[in-house]
C-alpha cells in the first residue's frame, strides 16, 4: 500500500528526514516511535502534504501512485488520512458542515454520486456512536472550546466518516487521560480491517497497549534505526531510547 524509499525532507536549510525506508501493507498496523525531535511528526506531515517541508530526495508510492506529486486534498481523496497532533480550531465552521463537503468532494473524485442529506445524517449518527462522540459537539464550531479528549475523538470521528485506506495517527495519545485514550483507541480498533492500514506515531508505549502494532520502528535523527515487533516497544518503555542511540552510533 505504502512504499517509502530513501525519503529526505528539510525545512529551510535544516534536513530532518535523512533517508527513511518503510513499507506498509494492507491490514497492518505500524508504530513509529522515537525521542522528541527525531522526525516522527515531520514524517507524518510530509506524507500528508504539508507544504512547510521540502522533499529533497527519495520517493513515496501510495497505492501505485507517486504520493509526493499529489496535492494534500488529492492525497486525502486517494485514501490517506492524518489525525493531527494539534487539531486546529476553526470558529464559524462546524464539523458537520465541512465534513459533508469533504465526503462529497472525495466521492466526486472517485466518480461516485454525491451523498444526500438523509444518508449523510444516518452515516454521521452511526459513526459518532462508534467513536463515542456527542453529536452536539459536531454542530459546534470545529474544535472551538473542545477539551483535549474531544478534539482527538473528533479526529477519529472524521477518520470514521472518510473511511481512509491508510490512517496516520500523529501523537494521538498526547494530552489524553487514560479514559480518553481508551475510547480513542477503541474507535481506531473498530475501524481496522484487512483492507486498510494504520501508522501510529507515538512517543510512549502506553497507546500501544490499546492499539496493538504488528511492527514497531524506532526513528532517531531522521532515520529508522531499529525495527521489530510489539516487544520492541516494551523494551523501549523499560530501557528508554539511549541504548538505541548508542547502538545506532556504533
Amino acid at each position, binding site marked *: 500500500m505504502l512504499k517509502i524509499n530513501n525519503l529526505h525532507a528539510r525545512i529551510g536549510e535544516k534536513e530532518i528526514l535523512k533517508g527513511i525506508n518503510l513499507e506498509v501493507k494492507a491490514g497492518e498496523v505500524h508504530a513509529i516511535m522515537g525521542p522528541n525531535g527525531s522526525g516522527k511528526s515531520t514524517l507524518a506531515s510530509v506524507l*500528508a*502534504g*504539508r*507544504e512547510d517541508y521540502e522533499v529533497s530526495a527519495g520517493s513515496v508510492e501510495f497505492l501505485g501512485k507517486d504520493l509526493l506529486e499529489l*496535492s*494534500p*486534498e488529492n*492525497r*486525502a*481523496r486517494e485514501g490517506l*488520512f*492524518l489525525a*493531527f497532533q494539534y*487539531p*486546529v480550531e*476553526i*470558529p*464559524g*465552521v462546524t464539523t458537520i*458542515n*465541512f*465534513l459533508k*463537503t*469533504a*465526503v462529497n*468532494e*472525495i466521492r466526486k*473524485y472517485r466518480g461516485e454520486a454525491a451523498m444526500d442529506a438523509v444518508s449523510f445524517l444516518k452515516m454521521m449518527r452511526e459513526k459518532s456512536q462508534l467513536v463515542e462522540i456527542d453529536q452536539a459537539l459536531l454542530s459546534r*464550531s470545529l474544535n472551538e472550546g473542545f477539551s483535549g479528549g474531544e478534539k482527538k475523538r473528533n479526529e477519529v470521528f*472524521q477518520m470514521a466518516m*472518510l473511511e481512509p485506506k491508510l490512517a496516520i495517527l500523529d501523537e494521538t495519545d498526547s494530552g489524553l487521560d487514560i479514559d480518553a485514550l481508551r475510547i480513542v483507541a477503541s474507535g481506531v480498533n473498530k475501524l481496522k480491517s484487512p483492507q486498510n492500514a494504520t501508522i501510529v506515531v507515538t512517543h510512549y508505549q502506553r497507546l500501544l497497549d490499546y492499539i496493538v502494532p504488528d511492527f514497531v520502528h524506532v526513528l532517531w535523527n531522521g532515520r529508522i534505526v531499529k525495527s521489530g515487533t510489539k516487544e520492541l516497544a516494551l523494551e523501549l518503555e523499560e530501557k528508554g531510547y539511549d541504548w538505541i542511540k548508542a547502538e545506532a552510533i556504533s
Partner: protein
Amino acid sequence: MASTNSESLKSSLLEQIRNVVDFNGDKESALTQLHFPVKKQEEWKYSIPNFLADSYQLSSLQEVPVSSIPSGLPSDACKLVFVNGVFSSELSDKSLPSGLEVSFCPLNNSIKPFEENLFGKLNEASAEKQGIHLHVHKNASIEKSILLVHIIPSTGLSSWIQPSISIHLEANSSASFGEIWEGLPADHFVANAVNEIRLESGANLHWLHIQDGTSDGIIINQTRVACAANSLFRHIVLSTGSGFVRNNLDIHIEGSGAHADMFGLSLGNGSFHCDHHSFLHHAVPNTTSNQLYKGIYSGKSTGVFNGKILVDQIAQKTNAYQSGRNILLSPDAKVYAKPQLEIFADDVKCSHGATIGQLDEEPLFYLRSRGLDLATARLLLVRAFASEILMQINSDSLRAYAEEKAIRQLDEMTKS
C-alpha cells in the same frame, strides 16, 4: 486634480443648488470656508482625494423616469424608495406600519459632525428642498423592517445626488431600518448622503446599511446619531463593490444606560476603496459600546478603518470596546487601520485593537487534508470570518438578503 478644478466644481454645484434653493448668509459663509478634502488632511490621507470628476449634474433636481425598484428585496419589509436622493411616494409602499410617519422636512443639524466637511455642508444646502423626516411614535414597536431603497438611474451623465434623511425615535419605541444602496448605475456618480438619527430614552434602533455593487461610483455617507438614556443603537454596515466608499459614522451617547453597537463587514474586490471613519463619544457616566469591523480584501482593493473613541471626564464607568480585523487575500490589497482612544475619565474599561493578516495556513491545510480543494477551503474560511458580522442582523429576511450578497461577493473574491 488641481485645487482650481475642485474650486470650480464647488462653484458649479453651488450654482446648481442655488437655482432651486435660497441660501441664507450663514450657510453661504460656512460653504465659502470649506473645500474638498486634500491628501494632507489627516482624516483623508488614506482615501485618495483626487477621485472627483471635473463636473457633475446635480441630479436630485432632474425629472428621471424610473420604472422599477431592484428585485430581490425582502418582501416582508416596508419599502421607502429614493430616486437620486429624492423620496418617491410613487415607488414607495403606500401603507406605512402604524407608529411610523414620513414627512418632508429639512435636517435640523442638531447633531454636530465630528468632521465638518464640504460634503456635509453641500448636502445641508439642498436638504431644505428634499429632506425627509421619519418619525417613530412613543412606545411604538414596529415589527416590519423599514427599507430605505436608494436608486440612481443611469443617465449617461455624471450625477451628484444628495439624500438627507432624519430619523427620530420617540421614547421606548423600537424599529429596524435597512438603508440599501444597490443596483447602482455603471456611470460615474457621487452619492453624498447624510442621515441624522435621534433616539429618545429607552428607544431601540437597529440599522443595517448595505452598500452593494458600486461600479465607478463614489458614496460619501455621513450618519450622525444621538442616543438618550437607556437607548440601544445597533449599526451594521456591509460594503461590497468596486467603487469608492467613505462612511463617517458618529455616535454620541448622551444618556446613562445607553449602549451602541457598531459592526462592519467590508468585502473588497477589484479597485474597491472602503473607508470607515467611526467616532464614538461617551458623554455621560454608565454607558457602553462595542465595535467590530471586519474586512476581507482581494484584487487591488483598499480598506481604511479609522475608529476613535472619546470618553469625557464625567463619563465614569464607561465600557468601550473596539476591534478591527482584516484579511488580505492578494498581495496588492491594502488595509490602513488607525484605532484611537481618547479618555479623560479614570474609572473606565476601554480597549482597542486592529489586526491585518492573511488566511491562516494551518486551517487551510487542515481542511485540504480532509479532501477540500484550496478554493473551497478558502471560501469556507472567509465565509466563517464574515458570518460573525452577518449573524448580528436581527431580522431573518434582512440577514438572508445580506448573506446572499456577501456570499456572492466572497465567491468572486476567492475565485481569483
